[in-house]
């Protein structure tokens, strides 16, 4: 078995740096280290288990496996439960990924020997359905473990969406039912549905603190309401805009509920011209009263004409990302309605410069400390004015060089001095290769 495991580990550590090679080089170093220690009268085999455990915690699995071949004591240490609390399963197929997968033999050993030790588990799957199914097969076998965190992460296309929903749901509910003390759950881009969330709530309502479920099309507003109503410890939540409602915000700001820390909302348009509902100002106000420090992170992926319902009333957004072209008008409204804004990223804008809009944002958004501009236009003077108004609180300032339009006051070559002066540190615009 030992032999078998060693081979697995080799697979594991493969990759660019060649974990295997590294260990060889390391051994030269290790020998010296040992010599040095011998001279000082220390001896490796006398290390008590606790210290060994401590050392092992800092070693990658591959090195631990090698170490476990040294002697009985180290082999015992290798199997200590403390070392098997976290595990990241990487499930990739050679046909769909460049990265190595966790060896099946290792997976088998973990399920057999250490599944009851697992607490923090994540699955990284590539774009193939096989990988998603393999992940669910492992999940279904985790019957005698109590997980605290579970993450299902699609590293390329969302492959959990491609597998039969029933298979996915039954695997997930195994974990929900057996865990009882799940505190973090990241299940973005999966076919999770309302009934399975009910099972989650029924078994883990006291412990759940984090739930990330962006782009889960089978969940309805009622499904997420059930979570918000029951899980009073929920501190972080990520979901798509269509699940957001006034009721949800009210539920999250109920007296029984702990302070919310992060709320992440993705606003994605399915088809052009889609109508979006609005959220009442009073609901946001309730949220802010309940959790004055909460961060509201919003990612917009909309066509310009779909922004109509947004930024009409004050909204407590702190991090705002516009993934597509957004109009001058909307950015003007942002300046008026987002007093808590901390970070603003605008990927693209129309052809007219954003001068007044930026100045207004500098005036009104007094917390703003990070801004990124992609395909936009701003006159150099307005930009300098913006930076001057914000001053040193601007920690992140990422502006594509093409954004800045030279005018009568500043040429492109002057601007980095001027901006650096106001920021109190050296600053340059971002550049792209002219190739």
């Amino acid at each position, binding site marked *: 078995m030992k032999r078998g495991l060693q081979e697995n580990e080799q697979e594991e550590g493969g990759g*660019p*740096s060649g*974990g295997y090679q*590294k260990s060889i080089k390391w051994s030269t*170093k290790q020998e010296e280290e040992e010599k040095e220690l011998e001279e000082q009268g220390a001896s490796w085999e006398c290390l008590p288990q606790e210290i060994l455990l*401590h*050392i092992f915690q*800092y070693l*990658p*699995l591959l090195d631990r496996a090698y170490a476990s071949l040294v002697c009985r004591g180290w082999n015992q240490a290798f199997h200590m439960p403390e070392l098997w*609390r*976290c595990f990241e399963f990487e499930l990739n197929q050679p*046909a769909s*990924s460049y990265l190595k997968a966790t060896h099946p033999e290792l997976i088998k050993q973990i399920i057999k020997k250490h599944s009851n030790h697992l607490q*923090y588990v*994540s699955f990284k799957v590539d*774009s193939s359905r096989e990988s998603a199914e393999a992940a669910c097969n492992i999940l279904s076998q985790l019957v005698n473990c109590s997980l*605290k*965190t579970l*993450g299902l992460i*699609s590293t*390329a*296309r*969302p492959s959990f969406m491609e597998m039969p929903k029933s298979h996915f749901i039954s695997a997930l509910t195994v974990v929900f039912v057996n865990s009882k003390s799940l505190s*973090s759950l990241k299940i*973005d881009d999966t076919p999770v549905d309302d009934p399975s969330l009910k099972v989650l709530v029924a078994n883990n309502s006291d412990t759940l603190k984090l739930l990330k479920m*962006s*782009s889960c099309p089978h969940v309805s507003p009622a499904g997420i309401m059930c979570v918000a109503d029951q899980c009073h410890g929920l*501190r972080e939540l990520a979901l798509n805009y269509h699940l957001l409602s006034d009721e949800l915000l009210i539920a999250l700001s109920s007296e029984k509920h702990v302070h919310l*820390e*992060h709320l992440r909302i993705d606003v994605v348009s399915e088809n*052009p011209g889609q109508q979006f509902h609005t959220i009442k100002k009073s609901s946001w106000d309730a949220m802010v009263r309940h959790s004055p420090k909460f*961060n509201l992170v919003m*990612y917009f*992926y*909309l066509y310009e004409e779909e922004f109509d319902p947004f930024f009409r009333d004050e909204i407590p957004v702190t*991090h705002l*990302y516009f*993934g597509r*072209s957004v109009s001058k008008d909307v950015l003007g409204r942002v300046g008026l309605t987002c007093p808590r804004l901390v*970070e603003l*990223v605008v*990927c*693209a804008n*129309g052809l007219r410069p954003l001068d007044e809009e930026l100045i207004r944002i500098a005036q009104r958004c007094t917390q703003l400390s990070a*801004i*990124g501009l992609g*395909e936009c236009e701003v006159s150099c003077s307005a930009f300098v004015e913006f930076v001057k108004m914000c001053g040193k609180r601007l920690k*992140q300032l*990422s502006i*594509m060089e*093409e954004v800045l339009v030279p005018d009568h006051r500043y040429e*492109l*070559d002057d601007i980095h001095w001027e901006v650096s002066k106001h920021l109190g540190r050296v600053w340059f615009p*971002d*550049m*792209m*290769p*002219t*190739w």
Partner: protein
Amino acid sequence: MAPNSIHWFRKGLRLHDNPALQEAVRGAGTVRCVYFLDPWFAGSSNVGVNRWRFLLQCLEDLDASLRKLNSRLFVIRGQPANVFPRLFKEWKISRLTFEYDSEPFGKERDAAIKKLAMEAGVEVIVKISHTLYDLDKIIELNGGQPPLTYKRFQTLISRLDPPEMPVETLSDALMGGCVTPVAEDHGEKYGVPSLEELGFDTEGLPSAVWPGGETEALTRIERHLERKAWVANFERPRMNANSLLASPTGLSPYLRFGCLSCRLFYFKLTDLYRKVKKNSSPPLSLYGQLLWREFFYTAATNNPRFDKMEGNPICVRIPWDKNPEALAKWAEAKTGFPWIDAIMTQLRQEGWIHHLARHAVACFLTRGDLWISWEEGMKVFEELLLDADWSVNAGSWMWLSCSSFFQQFFHCYCPVGFGRRTDPNGDFIRRYLPVLRGFPAKFIYDPWNAPESVQAAAKCIIGVHYPKPMVHHAEASRLNIERMKQLYQQLSRYRGLGLLASVPSTNGNGNGGMMAYSPGEQQSGTNNNNSHWAAASPESESASQNGKGPGKRSRRAALSTKCRDRVQRSALKVLKNSALLFPSKYKKHLQAEINASKIKALKCLKVI
């Protein structure tokens, strides 16, 4: 006796500013200019017909220019290593000259030929003229590492002496008494082959939009400067619909093949600037196009894996999708996004696309929409793009896919909006995708959104005559931004909510990234706590409360000074030992290894 020389042409296909060629004729009795072509390789290589045509035109132009000096070009069929020994004997050669090649495989090949020549008693003279600077000097100035940010590169350049002046063009006067013996059967034996001879089917091949050769290059540079002088504006020209089309002042393919000397271009620009701007000294930005090229050559020169993700110490490992069908759609201009497809069509037909068009298609293939490896895109460009150079092509792809060089990843070009802003009318689309000609400007960038009646009137039904879009762009960019963020957060160990702060910061010398990017760090062990998303995992419990978690870095910082000294000592030992094991060309890998070892040393010593 006066020496007999061979000048070996590879790049640098020109008679102007060619210092190595000058060395070949200096005091020589005979000179023969050779170019090696492997006809068997030609058909099977992944270089497309446009690039071959460009090369053959360059060779023909060289031959024509040499004829005027009573000389000829010798195109030799075969591999240099196999043929040179025979040539040395047959032609009684005592001097071999060529232009320095900075790319790792070129350096390897040249070292082998140098050895061969020395064994045959042939003197070898190598001159730098494909780049403005001696790249090794830049690296030396940066402490032995190539700079990994363009800013850093600019700083280093500004500390160097200006590039050397171009040397005189080869002329009768320079040739002096040096002659080229030309046999009766020269054409048969050493003539420039045709595309057909190389096995290309030229039927229906449209005439070249970019004709190759030094003569063309010199005409273009004059036009280029005339236009600049006329505009009297030295800023980077702002993009418009016109800049998308091949311009008769474009120079990049000529720089790539060395039909145009970068130094000549450099000094002509400087002169013009001084003339127009009344002797004020030109800013570095004037030479943007030349310096970017130089930057990538510098980054690649000691890195044989510069064109790969695996084993490339400066490349972030990104879990790209392998998806041959999607890749083929992109390469064959069938994505269903007219903007992307028009650019890819232009690339295939003409061999050149505007740099922002390159950004658009590269972003679409990689981090923007399809999440396919930049290596695949690079290979397609290598086949089709006239100015694709190993270093510049790979470097630009790494840049555009955010795989290296530390830049913001938030900005993804929209395959609909970007084109619309550049060319609102859509004439560029109509030119390269005639099937969409009937669409009004309103729908030409997203024809799938056009009502059926509009599609019918345009005589183009989406899904029948032109493909539907292959991805949902909004959804794809949502997913991909999230993935990039996760990857970069892992690299920078940043745990907060900001997107902009996720990019690893670059410290002083611009190669701070060696540490963050070293593969040992990135892998972070299957079993380590890198589940930074999980608020309740042991390490990040507190992270969710104060934005930045304690992370490994601070734990490391907690080491006692005594311990740190020991670590440094052992790291030094590792350095010494490994230096013995490694030839210096693997220095960069070595550095990564040392960093990894340091971390391990820290891990072990913490408890002792």
